[in-house]
């Protein structure tokens, strides 16, 4: 029982204590980031199951997918795509400023990212409300009469599952961004320690990545 490691390592310029099982700040950063990438792998496979379901049902009922997708609002879908892409830009900039110890700019970029996420969800809310109003709902709740295909509820099952799971990810992302905003304001990060901003950024880009595929699959070529 020696206590050769009794010395506490604090990252220079911050009050972040490097946990004792890491040799230094870089070691900690790399390990944390690797963990985040592994988590993103599981996220890809989580959505992967839904993409497989989409492939199967589209293969079985191509004409139904075509009819059903025409009820989606392409314009709102495209608007949300631009909003998410822009939020990815501001997120990347927030990380960039954090790396350069420009805390105020980093904070502002995080605020814009957060507001983009809110915009995305508001647009999604109006889309969902329209679908509920028209009866464009999953499976047995489907009551819309404008599509002459008895399997059209299947498309909306997929639509709500895929966009719903994505929407939950947007909400969780907003939680992370809010938390990182608060810590940035408090002055927790500088060029030597910005791991939470970096990892929140990776997560947020993944949310954007999923949408990059959902948008064409559901709105454009259903």
């Amino acid at each position: 029982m020696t206590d050769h490691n009794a010395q506490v390592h604090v990252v220079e310029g911050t009050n972040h204590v490097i946990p004792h099982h890491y040799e230094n700040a870089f070691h900690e950063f790399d390990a944390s980031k690797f963990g985040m990438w592994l988590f993103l792998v599981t996220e890809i496979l989580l959505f992967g199951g839904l993409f497989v379901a989409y492939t199967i049902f589209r293969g079985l009922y191509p004409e139904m997918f075509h009819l059903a997708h025409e009820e989606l609002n392409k314009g709102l879908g495209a608007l949300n795509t631009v909003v998410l892409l822009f939020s990815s830009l501001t997120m990347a900039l927030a990380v960039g400023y954090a790396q350069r110890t420009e805390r105020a700019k980093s904070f502002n970029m995080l605020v814009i990212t957060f507001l983009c996420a809110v915009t995305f969800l508001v647009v999604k809310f109006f889309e969902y409300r329209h679908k509920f109003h028209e009866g464009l709902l999953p499976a047995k709740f489907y009551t819309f009469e404008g599509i002459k295909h008895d399997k059209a509820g299947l498309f909306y099952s997929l639509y709500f599952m895929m966009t719903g799971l994505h929407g939950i990810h947007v909400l969780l992302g907003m939680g992370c961004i809010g938390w990182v905003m608060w810590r940035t304001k408090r002055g927790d990060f500088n060029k030597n320690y910005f791991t939470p901003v970096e990892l929140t950024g990776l997560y947020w880009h993944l949310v954007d990545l999923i949408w990059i595929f959902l948008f064409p699959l559901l709105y454009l070529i259903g």
Partner: protein
Amino acid sequence: MSDSHGGHQHEHHLSPLSLFVKIFVALIVLTFITVGTSMYDFGIMNIVIAMGIAVLKATLVILFFMQLKFDDIGNKVAFAASFVFLSVFILLTGSDLFFRTEHRPVKAAEKAAGGGGGAPSDQNKLRVASPDLLAKGKKSYDANCVICHGPGGKGDGPAAVALTPKPRDFTSGYWKLGGSPTRVFHTISNGSPGTGMAAWIQLSIEERYALAHYVRSISPNHPDDTQEDLKVAGLLGGSAVQEKVAQEIPIDMAMDKLEVPDQVVIPAEAEINPQSHGAHLFKMECAVCHGINGVGAPVTSQGLNPPVTLMTKAFSGIQAPWVNSQGDFITLVSQGFPGRGMPGKAGFSKEEWGALHSYARELALSK
């Protein structure tokens, strides 16, 4: 303790912020292209273009926004692996779904039966009735089937009392699993799940076809094989079909078929003509279940125990593919709705099909 940890970079990679802006502009341009191309119909290319652009956008996000281009090799491998496994997931499921060969129990039965006679060309001969086959069928029927189906095929054999559901009464004209030669052959070969009907694969293929022809000859309803039936039975395609087998049917059946009422071709119009040839045929062949002028009527199923009474649907206002497609109409009527009480009706001439279809169409279009 060394203060360097092998393999860990000691400088964070700093991408110029202008790079992010450039990537964003590229992403927006790609978004406009993908929305723009979706407005036009390029057939299969629409999905190729849309997915190609999505992959390109995703690559830009991953490499530059997520900075994977400048990351550890371990992170690169891990993230790339997720897409490799995702494509395995999608491609293998897709190849199973879209390239699965049709399950053919008939063929499995042929294998189990062993011996010759399994080649499609032989089966194509066997599936056409001949007096010889009918005689063989009667002999086999008396030996194997009478115990349940009864000597007259009325489903009243000595063993029938013990069976639920009751054995088929062939004189009812109702076929649960289809009444065409290959379908009846299929039922004899595989049995009827959930009933006392066993699979008779120990009988030779010829004997099973003979039985099929015999029980069809008892039935007032004996539809011919459709293309779909032949496909399912594996008898379509190859040279087997090209060598057209001359139809050999019993003389009395041929006489029945030759007896064609006056041939009048009725043009398709949406006004019901009760004097038309089609109306006449409808009255003779269909009205007993569908009611006069197809208004719908109660039908008591004779093939079920206890008997079930159903109302047939009125034709007026029906919207279905058959209304405007004679091909669909013929397929539907000749196959019937197995399991829903509609027996298949075949044996009409080309003109009769045309007349019947235009009359049914008039009924459907009527208010």
